[in-house]
C-alpha cells in the first residue's frame, strides 16, 4: 500500500478513560491521559495532514474468525476490547480503500499477547487487535501478504502463535531477551511452523539496547526482508516500552528513535501495544510516531530529561552477529525441512503449555497441523485449562481452515468437526472456515450449535 503523500494519516485516539484491568494496574484509566494532554495541546487533530476518526465496535464474527474464545467471544471480551479491535479494522478499511495514506490506532486495551485460543487475559491482552484486523483485510479486501513488525519490549507471542503456520504473514518481533522479561519467549530459534519457515523471526535484545542497534536491525534485517517478502500491507505493533524510562522494560530507546523507526518502516497501520511510562515516555513517543506517519518534522520532539545513551561494543557486536545469522535463516526459508520428530501420522504435532499471568492458570494444548502437499493444511487444537488440583473446565476442540486451503482439506476439516460433535468428549467444538468466511460453534452440554458468517 505505498500511497501518494497527498492523502492524510488517519488517527483513532481511544484512551478508554473508563476502563482498567484493576485500579492500580499499569493498564488503567490514567495510561493515555498525558498523551491526550500533549496531542490536544499541540493541536495534532487540527493538522491538515491528520484526520481523526471515531472508532466502531468490532463484530464478534470478526473475532471468531481469528481467535477461538472459549466458551464464546462474549465471555472473553468487554466493550473496550471490541472498540480497540474495531479501531484497527476501521483504519485498515480506509487505508486499503485508498482514502488514507496510513493510520495509527492509538487505542487501549492492547492485544499482542492474545493467542489463537483465548481462555482469559494474558499480558494485559484478551483479543489480538492486529491479527483480527489482518484476517479481516484478507477476507474482505483480498489482501494476500501481510507483514507485522512488533516493536514492543515484550515478545509478541500471541501474534506469533496465530500466524505460526501461515506462510503469507511475516511476523518479525524485536524485544528484550525472554530470559529477563514476560512472556519468556521470542528466542532467535523460534522460526515458524514447518510450512511457514522463517516467516516468524525473533530478535531478542540484550538489556540496554539503544536507538543505534534498534535502527541497525531495521536497516539490515527488517527492511531487506520486507523488500524480499513484498507484503501488500505492513502493520506495526507499536509498543512503546523500549523507552529508556519504562518501568517494566530495560531498554534505552528514545522518542526520536521510535519516530525514526516509524519513518523508515513506513507501516500502513500502527497499532498501540504496551508502554507504561505514562508521563515520561508516552506523550513524547506518541507525538513522534504520529508526526513520522504524517510525514512531518519530528525533530523538536524531545523528552525533558533526555540524555545520550551509548551501548557497549559487545552489545553492538552481538546484535550484528544475530542479524547475520537470521538473514541466513531467511535465505534458507524455502529449503528448510521440518523436524521429523514432529510428524505423527498425517499431522505435525506439538504440545504447548500456556501461562495466563493476569488470570493465573495454565492452558494445555495439543496442536495438530494436517500435512498436505497442496496447501498449508488445516489446524486442529485440543485445549484444556488446568486450574490446579485437577480442576478443569473440560476440553475444547478448535479447527481452523486457512485461506489457501485445498478442497480436500476443507472437506476433511468439516467432517472432523461433525465427528467431534458426535463424540461428546469435548465440551465445545469450533470450526473456522476462512475461505468461506463461516464460523461454527457447538456446545455438547446443551447440544446447541451457533453459526456466523461475514
Amino acid at each position, binding site marked *: 500500500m505505498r500511497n501518494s503523500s497527498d492523502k492524510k494519516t488517519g488517527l483513532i485516539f481511544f484512551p*478508554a478513560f473508563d476502563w482498567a484491568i484493576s485500579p492500580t494496574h499499569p493498564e488503567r484509566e490514567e495510561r493515555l*491521559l498525558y498523551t491526550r494532554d*500533549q496531542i490536544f495541546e499541540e*493541536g495534532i487533530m*487540527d493538522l491538515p495532514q491528520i484526520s481523526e476518526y*471515531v472508532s466502531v*465496535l468490532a463484530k464478534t464474527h470478526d473475532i471468531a474468525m481469528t481467535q477461538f474464545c472459549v466458551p464464546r467471544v462474549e465471555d472473553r471480551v468487554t466493550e473496550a476490547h471490541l472498540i480497540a479491535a474495531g479501531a484497527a479494522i476501521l483504519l485498515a478499511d480506509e487505508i486499503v480503500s485508498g482514502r488514507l495514506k496510513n493510520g495509527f490506532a492509538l487505542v487501549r486495551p492492547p492485544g499482542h499477547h492474545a493467542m489463537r485460543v483465548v481462555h482469559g487475559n494474558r499480558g494485559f491482552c484478551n483479543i489480538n487487535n492486529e491479527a483480527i484486523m489482518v484476517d479481516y483485510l484478507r477476507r474482505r479486501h483480498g489482501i494476500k501478504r501481510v507483514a507485522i513488525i512488533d516493536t514492543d519490549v515484550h515478545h509478541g507471542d500471541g501474534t506469533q502463535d496465530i500466524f505460526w503456520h501461515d506462510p503469507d504473514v511475516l511476523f518479525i518481533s524485536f524485544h528484550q531477551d525472554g530470559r529477563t522479561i514476560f512472556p519468556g519467549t521470542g528466542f532467535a530459534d523460534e522460526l515458524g511452523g514447518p510450512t511457514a519457515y522463517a516467516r516468524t523471526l525473533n530478535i531478542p535484545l540484550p538489556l540496554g539496547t539503544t536507538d543505534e542497534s534498534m535502527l541497525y536491525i531495521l536497516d539490515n534485517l527488517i527492511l531487506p526482508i520486507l523488500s524480499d517478502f513484498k507484503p501488500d500491507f505492513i502493520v506495526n505493533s507499536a509498543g512503546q516500552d523500549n523507552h529508556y524510562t519504562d518501568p517494566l522494560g530495560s531498554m534505552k530507546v528514545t522518542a526520536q528513535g521510535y519516530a525514526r523507526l516509524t519513518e523508515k518502516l513506513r507501516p500502513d497501520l500502527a497499532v498501540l501495544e504496551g508502554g507504561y511510562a505514562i508521563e515520561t515516555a508516552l506523550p513524547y513517543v506518541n*507525538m513522534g510516531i504520529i508526526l513520522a506517519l504524517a510525514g512531518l518534522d519530528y525533530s523538536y520532539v524531545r523528552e525533558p530529561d533526555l540524555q545520550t545513551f551509548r551501548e557497549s561494543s559487545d552489545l553492538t557486536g552481538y546484535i550484528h552477529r544475530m542479524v547475520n545469522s537470521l538473514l541466513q535463516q531467511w535465505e534458507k526459508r524455502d529449503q528448510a525441512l521440518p523436524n521429523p520428530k514432529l510428524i505423527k501420522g498425517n499431522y505435525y504435532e506439538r504440545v504447548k503449555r500456556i501461562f495466563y499471568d493476569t488470570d493465573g492458570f495454565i492452558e494445555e494444548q495439543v496442536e495438530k497441523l494436517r500435512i498436505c502437499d497442496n496447501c498449508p493444511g488445516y489446524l486442529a487444537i485440543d485445549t484444556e485449562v488446568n486450574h490446579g488440583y485437577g480442576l478443569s473446565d473440560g476440553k475444547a476442540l478448535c479447527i481452523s481452515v486457512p485461506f489457501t486451503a485445498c478442497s480436500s482439506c476443507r472437506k476433511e476439516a468439516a467432517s472432523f468437526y461433525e465427528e467431534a460433535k458426535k463424540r461428546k468428549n469435548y465440551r465445545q467444538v469450533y470450526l473456522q472456515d476462512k475461505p468461506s468466511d463461516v464460523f461454527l460453534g457447538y456446545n455438547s452440554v446443551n447440544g446447541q450449535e451457533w453459526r456466523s458468517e461475514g
Partner: protein
Amino acid sequence: MYVGVDVGGTFTDAVLLHNGQILTTAKIPTKTDLLESILEALDIVLQDVDIRDLKRIVFSTTVITNLIAGQKYDKVALLLIPGPGLSHKLYDFKTEVCILSGAIDYRGREIVSLNEKEIEETLTRLATKGFKKVGIIGKFSPRNSSHEKQVAEIIKEKYPDWQVELGFQAGPQLNFPRRVVTTFLTCATREPYSNFVNSVRQALAKREITAEVFILKADTGTLPLKHSVELPVETIFSGPAASTVGVQSLTSPDLTEVAIDIGGTTTDISLILNGQPLLSAKGARVEGQLTQVRTLAVKSVPVGGDSILERVGDEIVFRPERLGPAYCLGGPVPTPTDALRVLDLTGLGDEGKAREAMESLGTPLGMSAVETAEKVMSLVVKSITAEVKKMFLEWEQEPAYRIWELLQKRKVSPSIVVGVGGGSEGFIPRIASELGCQAIIPPYAPVANAIGAAVAKPTLQISLRADTEQGYYHIREDGFQGKIDRRSFNEGKALELAREKLLDKAAEYGLEVSPEEIEVTHQEVFNMIRGWNTVGRLYDLTVQTSRGIAVPIKMGGK
C-alpha cells in the same frame, strides 16, 4: 421589557418584548456605520415606550467580524513559548512571531526556564520595529501561566504603554495553535472594539437609557456590554446564534430540529438537539484560522433567494453572488426567487418577468418556465438538504474517548425544519419533505434573529483543575491558583470551590444566579498511580449557568 437588536450584513432588525409578547418590530437596511444602524432600529421600537420600563437590551453585531475581515487594527507581534514538540517551522500565524526559550509540561511543571536576556533583546527588536501590541502565548499555559505572566511583567516595566494579551486568558483550552490565533485576534480587536462599546454607551446615556446592556456571543450566551471588552472575539458570529435562539424561543422546547435561515446569498443551518443548540466540538474558524472561540455548529451554504442563476453547457448552476434583487423585482439576472414566483410559492414580484427569467435559462435546454423553475427549486433544496445530512453525520462522528460515550452514540434525526429569514417561505416545505420532517415557519420569522437576541441569557463558566499530588488547584478562566490540602481534598470540595467561584464571578458581572441554576458540564477524575500506590488525584471540572432562553415567545398576540 426586553429589546433585542441584530445587526446583520444587509438588514438590522429589532424587537420589543413584554412578558413574552412581541410589541413592536423594526427592519432597516444596515448602514456602514453600525452605531447609526443600532440607534435607528432602537429608536423605532422604543418610540412609544417609557424607557424606565426597559429592563434589558441585547445586541448582536457584526462589529468584530467587520474589524477582522477588514483588518482594521494595528499590527500585533506574537511572543511564543512553545518549547519542545511540534516543529516551530510548522507554525504559520501570518504576523511577526518571536520564539522565546522556556517550557511547561502537561501537568504545569516548568521543564525549561525563561531567558531574561533573550526576552529583553526580543523586546528591543520589536520596539525598533514599532510594535506596541503583543500577545504572549505559552504551550500548556492554562496549566501554569507563570511564564506568560513573567514576560508580561518585564514588558510592563520597560514598555508601560504597550498593550499585552496573555494566552491563558484568551485561549484557556488545551490547544496551543488555536490559543495563539485567539490571543492574536483579542489583541488586535480590543482597542477598536472598546471604542465601539464606548460610543454605544455614550449614545444610550444620551437617550437616558439605564437598562442593563448585553452583547450576544457565538455560543448563544450573552455578556454584559462593559465586560465584553475582556473577550471581544467571543462576540463574533453572533448572527447565526441570534437566529438559532430565536427558533428555540418560537418553537416547543425539547424538540430536535433544524433551523434554516435563508438570506439573499447565503443559507445558515444550525441544529437544535433536544431543545439545545448544538455547539461546535472545537472552536470557530475565523478568516481561515482555527480559534478557541466557542460557537454554534453552523454551516453556511452559498445559496439564497438572490443568488445568480446561470446556464453552463447543459446544466443550470448558481453562483454565490448577488447582482441585485430578483429579476421579477426589477433585478438584472434570473434568481431562485424568480423560480418561486413561477411556481406560485411567493407573492413577491411580477409573474411575467419571473417567467421571462426562467425561460431565458430553460428554453435553450428545451424546458418550459415551470420545468426550469422546478429544476432550480430542486437544485437549491438538494444543496441545503445535503448539508443538513452532513451535519448530522459529523455530529455522530465526533470523537469519543470513553466507552459509555461511544456506546450511547446513536442516530439522531430531526422531526422539524424551521425556516426563518427572508427567503424561507418558498423553500422550507420542500426541504422539510425531502428530510422527512414537518415544516414550520413561525410568526415573526423575518425578525427571529432579533427575538433571539432579546431572549438570550447570560452564560458564565468556571473551569477548575486540581492536582492533589502537587497540592494546588487552578481556575482556568482567570489563572487563579490556590493551595489545597492533599489529604482532605475530594470531588465534593472541588465542585464546591468551582460553584463558589462561579457565584463570585456572577456577582462581579452584576448577575443574579441561584445555586440551583448551576450545571456541571464536564467532570473528570483520575487516580494517579506511581508504582502500585495512589500518589494523588487529578480533578478537571467545568460548571456554568444554565443555557436556555429567558422567556418563551407567546404566539398569536400581534
